[in-house]
Every structure is written in C-alpha cells, then in structure tokens.
C-alpha cells in the first residue's frame, strides 16, 4: 500500500463508512437531495463517493468536491438514520483531506485568515469587530447602499454585508461579571460560554441568557478570555485548529467547579458536546474532553430538564419555531423549546411545515455558497409565511442572521428572536 492510501484509510474510518447499508431512509430529509433529486446530492450518495475517494482519490473529480461543499452539514440524515451512521464525522474528515489537496487561491486564503486569525483569536476578533462597527455606523455604508454602488460592484459583497450582524456597541464579555448571583434561591452552579460571534454580534442575547439564568436559581460563572469553540474550523477543513481551540477551552473551564456549561448557540453546543469524539486519539485530553462534553447543556435543554417555568400574563402574538439544525439534529433537542414556548404563549404556537429543514445559514455556507443558500432560505421563508406568525423563534445565531435577511428580502413584518430573548421578555417566573 502506498503512503497516500495509508493516510487516507487511517483518516477515513472504514468501519464508520460500512455502517451505511444504503437503505435510503435519509433521502427525503436531505435538503440538497430534495432540491436536486440527484442521488449524488444525498447522504447515501455522498457516503458512497467518500468510500470511493478513500479507495482511490484519483477516480473522482470536481463534481465530488462540489458535492462535499454543497452539503449543508445540517445532519438531518443522522436523525433519520436508524443504523446510526456518523455522517458528520466522515464529511468533516473528507473536507479536511480535500482542503489539504486543494490549490491555494484567494478564497481559500481569505477563509483561512477569517477562521485562524480572526475567530480563533479573541483580541483580533474584537479589533476587527470595532472596525466593522465603525463601518456599519458610517455615512460611507449608507452611501454604498442608498446609491446601489456596492450591489453594482459585487452582488456577493453586498449579500455578505447584508448578512453580517449589527456589531454590538460593547461585546458581552465586557459587561457580564465573572460571577453573577441568582435573583432568589441558589440551586445550580453553571458556567457560560459566550461564543465568538455571539459575543460581538449578539451581545444582547448573551445578556438575556444571563438574565434568564439568574431567574432560574443559577450562580453563573463566566470566565474571561474564552475561546471560539472551533466548530466553523472543523466544518471547513481546519481540523487541526479546531482541536487546538477545543484544548484551550477544556483547559480554561477546568479551573472552575460547575454542574453544567450553558451554551446558547446550537452550533457551539453541538461541537463542544462532541469534543470527546474530536480528541479521541489524544491520550492527554481524552478523559478531560469526556468530562467537559458531558456537562454541556443548551439553554433550552437546561430549562426543560430542570422544569423551570416562565409564565406570561397576556400574550397576543402568534409564534412559530424554526429548528436550528445543530439543536434538533446535532443534539436531538426538539420537544424542549416547543414546551417552553407553548407554556408562555398558550395557544398561539403554530408549527411550520418542514421546521427541521436547514435555513441555508449553515455556519458560513451562506457566504461560501450564496446562490444555494438562498434556495434553502426561500423555501424556509415560504413555510414561515404560511403560518402567518408574528414572531419566529430559533436557537442559533447563524439562523437568526439568515432569517433576518429573509425578512428584509421579503419585506415582512416579522420578528426573529432567540428562544432565550423570547423568555426574557416575559415577566416573572
């Protein structure tokens, strides 16, 4: 066996691959298959191709690479798969191998820079956010938009600009104290992961999370100088950096005693719950990764599991819920947010068609594959519009950005809210 094949077969796990019995039960839940009707855009098709790639990568060409990128990584197939195939692991490993092979181009350099130099480095992230905020507040942006100059120069850049969250005035970790005490009884000791995008782009959601935890009898520890979870790195072929970030987080939180580590970002929560899988070959970290992962809870999961109730006085708005892929498929969280929302808004909850289908945000998919992303967003917006709801609730920053753009694009009078902000708006417990 030559060296290349040795490398491939050790990275792409043959046992994981052969677990797929190609029964096809994943087809009808896969957004890309449902859109193209082509087997190569289905989970079972992609697994067949990965198998071929592991055997001999020279047999496959651009179509294969494109299919790997076309996949949203939404993991709906994992929910549907009775055989328990770990599709996401195989997909990430393949993307890693492909990225090693790829020729360097400007797009790749930019992604690498964004992931490794900005997201992975807290002080750089803050610096660039401040620059971005200055731009967002400036007459320059207003002019670019009002005169359609940006749209004419590059529709791609225009969309990126539209999708970028409004950077908060101050990042949340500068406001949140290291220790926050509960409002009344003290029952739980929790820590809080502020995230990277959440911290600078959605500071208010982080503050809402702290408020809700305070009302839920929690003493909250929010360590300073936290790290990005590394999920975006892993999904875009930067596995090494992802592992490094995982270790940084494990080392940081090791210093605190806590029952649960609360996350309000579906993508981060899922990835941190799977650190033990990411670091399974690292003897030094395997054990601590397992402990770290076992304590991660999504905020809606925490509230539901501990039976914490939030009642509202009067509620007139009708509400629908969009399942963030990394909550419903990544963590199996489906009932929990619905129960919480139902308790609050009584009979005004309206289920949308295909609520568990991806909105097209998918990490940085909406920037890397703008046209495809818009197809999934349009499908999602149609399903939301049919419910006639006033508010759409979801549990992930990426989905919020994407859906807010969808609202703007369709000229709708619809609010997009994080579950935890929706809770915090209600009075009393």
């Amino acid at each position, binding site marked *: 066996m030559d060296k290349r094949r040795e490398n491939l077969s050790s990275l792409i796990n043959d046992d994981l691959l052969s677990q797929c019995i190609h029964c096809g*039960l994943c087809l009808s839940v896969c957004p890309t298959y449902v859109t193209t009707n082509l087997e190569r855009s289905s989970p079972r098709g992609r697994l067949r191709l990965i198998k071929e790639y592991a055997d001999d990568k020279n047999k496959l060409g651009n179509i294969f690479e494109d299919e790997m990128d076309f996949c949203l990584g939404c993991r709906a197939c994992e929910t549907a798969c*009775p055989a*328990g195939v770990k599709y996401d692991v195989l997909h990430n490993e393949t993307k890693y191998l492909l990225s090693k092979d790829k020729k360097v181009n400007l797009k790749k350099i930019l992604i690498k820079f964004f992931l490794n130099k900005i997201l992975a480095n807290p002080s750089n992230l803050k610096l660039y956010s401040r620059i971005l905020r200055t731009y967002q507040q400036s007459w320059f942006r207003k002019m670019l938009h009002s005169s359609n100059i940006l749209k004419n120069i590059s529709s791609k850049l225009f969309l990126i600009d539209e999708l970028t969250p409004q950077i908060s005035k101050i990042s949340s970790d500068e406001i949140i104290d290291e220790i926050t005490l509960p409002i009344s009884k003290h029952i739980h000791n929790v820590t809080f992961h502020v995230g990277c995008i959440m911290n600078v782009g959605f500071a208010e959601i982080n503050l809402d999370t702290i408020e809700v935890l305070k009302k839920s009898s929690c003493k909250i520890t929010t360590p300073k100088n936290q790290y990005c979870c590394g999920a975006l790195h892993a999904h875009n072929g930067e596995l090494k950096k992802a592992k490094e970030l995982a270790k940084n987080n494990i080392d940081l939180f090791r210093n605190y005693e806590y029952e649960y580590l609360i996350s309000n970002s579906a993508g981060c929560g899922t990835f941190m719950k799977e650190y033990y899988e990411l670091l399974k070959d690292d003897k030094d970290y395997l054990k601590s990764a397992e402990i770290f992962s076992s304590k991660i809870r999504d905020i809606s999961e925490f509230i539901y599991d501990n039976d914490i109730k939030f009642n509202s006085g009067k509620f007139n708005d009708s509400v629908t819920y969009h399942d963030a892929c990394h909550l419903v498929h990544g963590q199996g969280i489906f009932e929990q947010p619905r129960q919480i929302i139902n308790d609050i808004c009584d009979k005004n909850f309206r289920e949308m068609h295909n609520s568990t289908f991806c909105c097209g945000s998918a990490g940085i998919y909406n920037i890397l594959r703008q046209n495809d992303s818009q197809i999934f967003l349009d499908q999602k917006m149609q399903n939301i519009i049919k419910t006639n709801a006033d508010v759409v609730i979801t549990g992930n920053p990426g989905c919020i950005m994407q859906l807010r753009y969808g609202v703007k694009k369709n000229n709708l009078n619809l609010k997009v809210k994080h579950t935890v902000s929706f809770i915090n708006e209600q009075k009393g417990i």
Partner: protein
Amino acid sequence: MDKKIKSKLKEIVGQNNFFDSNEDKLTYSYDATPIFNELPEAVIFPENTLQISNIIKLANTEKFNIVPRGAGTGLSGGSIPVENSIALVMTKWNNILEIDHSNLTVTVEPGVITQNLQNEVEKLNLFYPPDPGSASVCTIGGNISNNAGGLRGLKYGVTKNYVMGVEMVLPNGEILKTGGKNVKDAAGYNLKDFIVGSEGTLGVITKATLKLIHKPKSFSTIIAFFESMKDCSKTISDIFNCNLTPAMMEYIDNTTLKCIEDYAKLGLPKAAEAVLLFEFDGREEEVKEDTNNLEMILNNNNAYSVKKAKTLLESSKLKAARRSAFSALARVKPTTILEDATVPRAEFPMLIELVNKAGKDNKVLFGIFGHAGDGNLHPTCLTDERNKNEIERAHKAFDFIFNETIKLGGTITGEHGTGLSKKEFLENVAGIPGVEMMKKIKSVIDENNILNPGKIFTTSPRCEGNLPFNNKQIKPFNG
C-alpha cells in the same frame, strides 16, 4: 456505450437530464440490496412519455438495456443496473394528478412518494393502506413494480389489491393503457395484474390509478412484551382462533428490539424475548371491543409491560420505531441481508423456530422481525461482507430457510420481489412450468430483452447472441 448513442440520448431528454460522470454512475450503481451493484453507462431523467418511448425505441435499435428506477429502496436488487444499461430515474414524476372522492380513486405519476400520497388523501378522510417500511422515501412506481406490502397486510392486503389502472410504455415504444376507475371490468385478460410485480421487465409505468377506502374513524395501538417465544406464539394463534383481525400485528425478536431501542429511545424493556405490536382500527365501539379481547388474550399468555398508546404521537412513534427495524439492525453488523420468507400465517411461529435453527447450525447471527398477521417474516442475517466465509455460511442458512419455507407451503418473497437476489430460488416455488410461462411472456413482450434483463429469472442467451459491446467484455485468452 458508444458516444454516438449517448449524444442521441441527450438529444431526446436534453443535456440537463443526462448524467454520465463517474460520480453519477457510482451513485446509481446500488439500491438498498446488500452486496449487489453494477455501474450504469448513464443516468437519465425523462420528462414525458414520448421521451421514454423514444429512449426505448433507441435501445431496441442500438441494443442497450434500460433499468427503470424510483427511489432505489428495493431489497431484491430490482433497480440495480445491469451490463450495458442506462438507469431511467422516475423520481421527478411526483405529481398527484387527481383525487376522485366519489369514485374513491387517486391517479398519480409513478414518482409520488407513498407517504405523501397517504398524507394527501387522509386530509380528505380517505385512506391508502399499503405502507412499506420505507414509505417516507419509496415511490408508487416502485411499489407497483414489486407488489409492495407493509404493516397492514393482514386486514387490508397489499399493493396489488389497490391498483385499478396503469399507463405504461411497452418495450416496443407503444403506450399501453389498461384498467381504470371501474370496480368491475371483465374485458379480456387482466393485464394490470401482469404488470403488478413485474419489476420493470415488461415496461415503464408512467401513470397509475389506485383504489382508496374511507379512513377508519378510530384506532388503538398496543405493544406487548414476552419472556418466552412460546407465550408469544400462543398469543398469535389465540388471536387467529378467536376471530380477531388486527390491522397490524408485528413481531420483533430480542436482537431487533435492542437495536430499535438504541435508535428510537422509547424506553422499551430491552430484555424481552419477543415483542408484538398491534393496531386495531374501525368504528369506535368495534375498536374498544377488540382491544379488550386482545388484552384478555395477552393476560392469559403472560405478556408484560402491555402499553396502549395514549396519543397520536405516541402511536406513530411506536410504528416508526418498528419501521426502522431493518436499518437499525446495522448497528450490530454492517451488512444486513434481509429476506422475505412468507408462509401461510398459521405456520408463522414454526418459521421463526426454523430461522433460529438455521442461525445456530451455520453459526450466523439473525435479527428476526416481521408481519405476524400475514405470515411474512423478515429473517435478517447480520454479517459483514468483508468476511467472505461468514457470507458463505449466511447463504447456506438462507438455502435452508427457503427450502423449509416452501415445505411449509410458503413462498420465497412476500413483498420485496425476486430481482437479482432471489431468482435462483424462483423455480422451487413457481415450478418449471411457471417459470417457463413467465419467460415466454417476457420474450414475447420484450423481443430484444432490453428492459431490466436478468431480473426475476435468467433468460438464456440465444444461440447467435450479440457481439461483445466493449473490450471489457472480452476476457483475455490465457491458453
């Protein structure tokens, strides 16, 4: 395949509906059948009946084969490509054309997904009973071609009981329309019944009219667990003997139960030796009475943890868990060879015993589940295709099971079709005159043997034969 033929195909269906990259060939080289696979020369999505007719005419003149395909969830290899073939994919034909409430029929294109059809007609309080395990993915065209069954076979029958009319492009390119909305029709041969279960060997189905019934007003779903197989068998025969007809009576063995629970996480007691899942439907009083009678029988036979689903969601979760059985078994071992042995229903417990014996004698592991109500068992051998020796033992076990099944008056397949994987056993159950008659029908209708050749039975090559199509077909002479 010759480039000229490919460009002619492109002319017929258009560039957008023609695929022949390595990636596309690979991803249409399989269906849900283990072990078998073969690359097609091209993958084609026809847009209308005329295109299909033209493709078939071209195949006759240029001598290539056509393998029609739906969602590719078949379990006997019926839609796996053959040598020098194109895959003709019908999944884009997914329109429900008409729901005729007063005549109780629905007319659909072949690519309609079975569950979508069920959901749509149920909105009108109508009901389409056949529900194969893969209902959320599989298509009506595939259901008809394989005479698919499902969980409700005992009370409601299988696909053939619901096909009223079919439109099909024949192997000479002509378009056949047979049957319709008439409940009674005695005009000539009953052609539609030839077509049901013909596995794409007699034509390409392009439209179908199906029978509907009224949706039952109420139903109840009950699950029961047993410590011994004996108690379970006794329960099954007691139910038959006291004139109870559940809409569903599903058997699940311990191995399958464990896998299902690992996937669905419903909190089922994993230690149980056997499980039965029941559903009664009909008028409310009727369902109540039947449920009471069932509970009495279960009680007499030491069933434990008997649970009745309280909500619609609970009931659908139980049924969905049962539907996942086949795929969930892959949690034990990666190759799951699922068979479809079927016996007269009273012999069902006997068949389970025989499967267990076959497993023991050949040292292979079986997960067993099936439709206890209609005698259709799914003994599933859990193996690994990378282990050649074990696969051989699995085949021996199946030889034994099939032979014993036939001795019990049974058949080699209840609902999956013969395809590639069971054709060597066909003669045992259909007899030589039976297989000969099938072959004659095939050779008269499909003169050049271009539609899904080599499925169901092997048609012996004619003396003159065709010249080899490409170099790969010529084996080097090492004399």
